[in-house]
């Protein structure tokens, strides 16, 4: 049973790893509705983050995850799945 939740710190690390975007996790947390596009993460970058999470946790994320507009929306969707368990 997976009981973990994706944090802003982990999302920031994934944005760096998968999309080459450096962002302060605290800034991300302060403005979680800032669009990914404005942050410099394009659709393929977000898809890369989704793929990394799916491989890491062995779960399938809903297709809506890769269409998320903002970190808040993305974390909501992803954590909904992760906390339900695999």
């Amino acid at each position, binding site marked *: 049973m997976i009981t973990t939740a994706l944090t802003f710190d982990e999302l920031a690390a994934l944005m*760096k790893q*998968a*999309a*080459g*975007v*450096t962002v302060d996790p605290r800034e991300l947390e302060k403005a979680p509705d800032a669009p990914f596009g404005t942050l*410099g*993460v394009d659709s*393929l*970058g977000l*898809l*890369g983050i989704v*793929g990394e999470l*799916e*491989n890491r946790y062995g779960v399938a994320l809903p297709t809506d995850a890769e269409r998320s507009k903002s970190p808040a929306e993305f974390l909501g969707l992803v954590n909904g799945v992760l906390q339900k368990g695999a």
Partner: protein
Amino acid sequence: MSTERPGRVAVTGIGVVAPNGLSADAYWKSVREGLGVLDRVTREGCEELPLKVAGEVRGFEASDLIEERFLVQTDRFSHYAMAAAQHALDDAGIARDVPEDPFSIGVVTAAGSGGGEFGQRELQKLWGQGSRFVGPYQSIAWFYAASTGQISIRSGFKGPCGVVASDEAGGLDGIAHAARAVRRGTGAVVVGAAEAPLAPYSVVCQLGYPELSTVEDPDRAYRPFTDAACGFVPAEGGAMLVVEDEQRARDRGAAVRAFVAGHGATFTGASRWRESREGLARAVRVALDDAGCAPEEIDVVFADALGVPEADRAEALAIADALGAHAARVPVTAPKTGIGRAYCGAPVLDTAAAVLAMEHGVVPPTPYVFDIRHDLDLVVSRARPAELRTALVLSRGLMGSNAALVVRRGDDSAR
């Protein structure tokens, strides 16, 4: 339907990333000195392959020039192209990021292959770990059109963009394509080519070329026009130019470094070097006609110089066929022997060298080459001072494309 403007097409910027220099100035210094930088191939995974000698771009730190979010989604060939484009735009005095009129600037590149290194890495994940481990940027990074897209995105240019896939000679065809775009009303086009053929998968692909030299001595691996000709060695890197409507350049006070005057292209079939004589000669005639240029006006020829005896003979004869009696007098050079052939990047580098040669009034020499077996006035050993107003650049591809470009000197004083 489009109407062509009568004005001339100026070259206002040059950017180079090459084995012998990471800027146009450094490149020219090496070219003028006739420096040969061919060396052992050291790229990871290539050491045991039969290709032993090539021109590697060394000391290039992509992260010094290019933002990480572009680096993660691009192959080395695009890194070179983005860096060269940046140099060319800086040289032309055109701002990136927020261009004044983004729709007035386009991007054209030529590509012979694409992102082999990036593609190999992702394909290894595919068969090593499974499809879920292939990164999404594989979909764009390997693609031969990647550099055009990334340069336009990174710079904010929204004018006509394109990619020319016509073999090595596509480097010249791309410049002609850009010049046509300018004549049809686009203000400026960033145009050129850069390649990164020294990755294991890419090298293995090239091993099938009968023209590839696998000679192990860098001093002997690529010596066109000599009895020791044994094929060519590949190179990394390339060049990007800014070509621009002359009036627009003058209006914004930009220096006109040269003019793209004429172009011709033909096709004679893969590795059919004897037939390339007729094809190359025809390309030259078409280019001269396009430029309104008599053969006698050509002051220097930048040869294709493949290094395959039959191809070298065909080129020497093509120059004679097209230029007539003038062929025996015109200086010919092939600075690419010092760095290898960067596929589509090679003729763009030659075009950059031609502009620089005209600005400085010297014909650069042909490194590693002595004892010419053909009836050509090939410049070897050291640069030759000469008044150069018009240059002819030649290129042929392994798949059969032939192209010729006529470039005229700009009328601003040499820098």
